[in-house]
C-alpha cells in the first residue's frame, strides 16, 4: 500500500495549536462584542462570566455530582443499548425470515422522535436515572443494531468459504469470521453511539430530573440565567471531547490490525 505523503498530513502539534488559536479567537470576539455593547449579555452572557461560573461549580463541588449522574446514565444506556442492539442485529442477520417480518416495525420504531418518548419514560420509570437510561437506550440501540446487522451480512463470502473449507463448524464460523467482522462495524460506531447515549441522558434530564447536567441547564433556563445555560453546555462539550478522545484510542487499539 502506498505510504501517505508526510508533507500532506500536518503534525499533531500544529493542528493542536491551530485548534487552540481558533477557540481563543472566537472567545475573544464574543467577549469584545459584549463589552462594546453590540451583544447584550442578558441574552448571550460573556465568556469571562461563564468561565467564572464553571470555576465556582468546581470549587464548590456542585459540578461533580451532576456530572457523575449524567455519565452514569450515559454509560448504562450505552451498555444496555449495545447489548440489545448487538443481539438483535446478530439474530436478524442470521435469520432472513425474521429480518423480513420485523423490518417495517424496526423502521417505524426508529422513526419515532425520541423527545416524544421522554415524557412517557418519565411516567413509566420515574424521575430518577432509569427514565434517562431508557431514553439513551432507544438512541444507542438502533446505531448498534444496524451496524451489527450490516457487519454480519457484509462478512466477505470468500473468508466464509475459506474458513469452511479449512474445517470450521457453524459455531467456529460465527466465532472466527462473523463476530470479528461485525465487531469492526460495532467498534467504528462506538463514537456515534457514545454521543447518542449522552444526548439521551441530557435530554432526559432536561425534561424532568432532580440531578444531572441537563437538569442544571434547564434550571438555569428557568431563571433566565444565560451564564448558567452556557456554562452547562460548555461542561458538556468538554466532557464529550475528552471521552471521545478516549474512545478514539480504544478504537485504534481494538482495530489495530486494520493499519
Amino acid at each position, binding site marked *: *500500500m502506498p505510504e501517505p505523503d508526510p508533507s500532506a498530513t500536518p503534525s499533531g502539534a500544529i493542528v493542536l495549536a491551530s485548534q487552540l488559536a481558533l477557540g481563543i479567537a472566537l472567545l475573544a470576539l464574543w467577549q469584545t462584542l459584549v463589552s462594546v455593547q453590540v451583544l447584550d449579555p442578558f441574552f448571550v452572557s460573556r465568556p469571562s462570566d461563564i468561565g467564572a461560573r464553571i470555576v465556582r461549580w468546581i470549587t464548590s463541588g456542585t459540578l461533580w455530582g451532576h456530572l457523575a449522574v449524567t455519565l452514569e446514565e450515559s454509560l448504562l444506556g450505552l451498555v444496555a443499548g449495545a447489548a440489545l442492539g448487538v443481539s438483535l442485529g446478530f439474530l436478524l442477520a442470521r435469520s432472513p425470515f425474521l429480518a423480513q417480518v420485523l423490518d417495517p416495525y424496526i423502521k417505524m420504531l426508529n422513526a419515532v422522535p425520541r423527545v416524544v418518548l421522554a415524557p412517557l419514560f418519565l411516567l413509566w420509570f420515574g424521575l430518577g436515572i432509569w427514565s434517562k437510561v431508557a431514553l439513551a437506550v432507544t438512541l444507542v440501540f438502533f446505531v448498534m443494531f444496524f451496524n451489527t446487522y450490516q457487519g454480519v451480512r457484509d462478512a466477505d463470502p*470468500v*473468508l466464509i*468459504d*475459506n*474458513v*469452511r*473449507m*479449512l*474445517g*470450521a*463448524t457453524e459455531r*467456529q464460523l460465527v466465532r*472466527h*469470521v462473523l463476530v*470479528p467482522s461485525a465487531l*469492526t462495524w460495532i467498534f467504528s460506531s462506538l463514537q456515534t453511539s457514545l454521543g447518542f447515549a449522552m444526548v439521551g441522558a441530557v435530554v432526559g434530564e432536561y425534561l424532568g430530573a432532580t440531578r444531572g447536567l441537563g437538569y442544571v441547564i434547564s434550571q438555569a433556563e428557568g431563571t433566565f440565567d444565560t451564564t448558567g445555560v452556557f456554562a452547562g453546555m460548555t461542561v458538556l462539550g468538554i466532557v464529550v471531547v475528552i471521552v471521545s478522545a478516549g474512545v478514539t484510542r480504544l478504537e485504534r487499539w481494538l482495530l*489495530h*490490525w*486494520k*493499519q
Partner: protein
Amino acid sequence: MNALELDGVSRDFGTPDRRVYRALDGVSLAVPSGAFVAIVGPSGCGKSTLLNVAAGLLSPSSGVVRVAGEPLDGLNRHATYMFQQDALLPWKTVRDNVALGLILGGVRRAAAHARADAWLTRVGLANFAAHYPAQLSGGMRKRVAMAQNWMLDRGMVLMDEPFSALDIHTRQRMETELLSLWEGRSPESLDRKTVVFVTHDLEEAIALADEVVILSAGPAARVVAQHHVALDRPRDLMELRTASAFVDLYRTIWAVLREEVIKSHRAAEGRRA
C-alpha cells in the same frame, strides 16, 4: 486410484430475469491421486464453478462428484481451497491465520503455533509471524495462504487462479515455490498432494501441470481436450518456457484453446450488440 472424479456434472444458475444459465454441461473428468492437473479455458467459461463443485461449495445440478471413490455429500473434506482473492482473516496475525486449520480441527494452540511457525520458515516469512495481513505485500499474503493450505493433512489442494492478481515476477516466484512444495522437497509432504489448478493462462498451466484440461467457452462449458505434459521434473521454471518441448506443447494446445477463446470473444461481442 482417482482422487477426484466428475461424472457428467452440470450446474445451472437462475438469472435475475428468471431464466436458467447453464454454466457447466456434462463435464467428466478424472484426477489421479497425486497428480497436478490444470484446468484452462477462456474467461467466464465456468472454471471457478467447476472448482466450487469439486470443493462441495456448490452442488451439481446433475451428475456425480466422487472424492476418493465416494460420492461427495457436502463439503469436500479431503481438500483445501486456495482462492483467487485474499482469503486470510484480516483480524488474525499471520501465525494465527496459518494455524487456523489446525485450531479448527481441535489441535491445541501452542502445538498449532509451533507447526505454523515451521511452515512460515519454509515459505520465508518467519519474521512476519506477528504481522497482520494488511501489513504484507500481495506476494507475501499468497505465501501465507499456501502455508495455510499446505500444512493441513489433506490429500488435495484446489487452486482458483491463485496468482492472477500478482505482477509477473512475483507470480513466477510463487509458481516456483508452489512446485517445490508439491514436488515434495521437504520431509512433511512425502506423498504428493493432488492439485487441481484453475487458470486462464496456458503457459502457467503447462509449466506447472502433468495434465492440461481444456474447457470450452461458456455457457454450457464442456471438456474439449486433455493433454499430457511430458516434461521432466523437477522443472526449472526460469528455463522451461524457452525449451523446445515446452514451445511445441504450447503450440499444440493453443491451437485447441484458441478456438474457444475466439468463440468467447464472439459471444461477448454478441452480448454487447
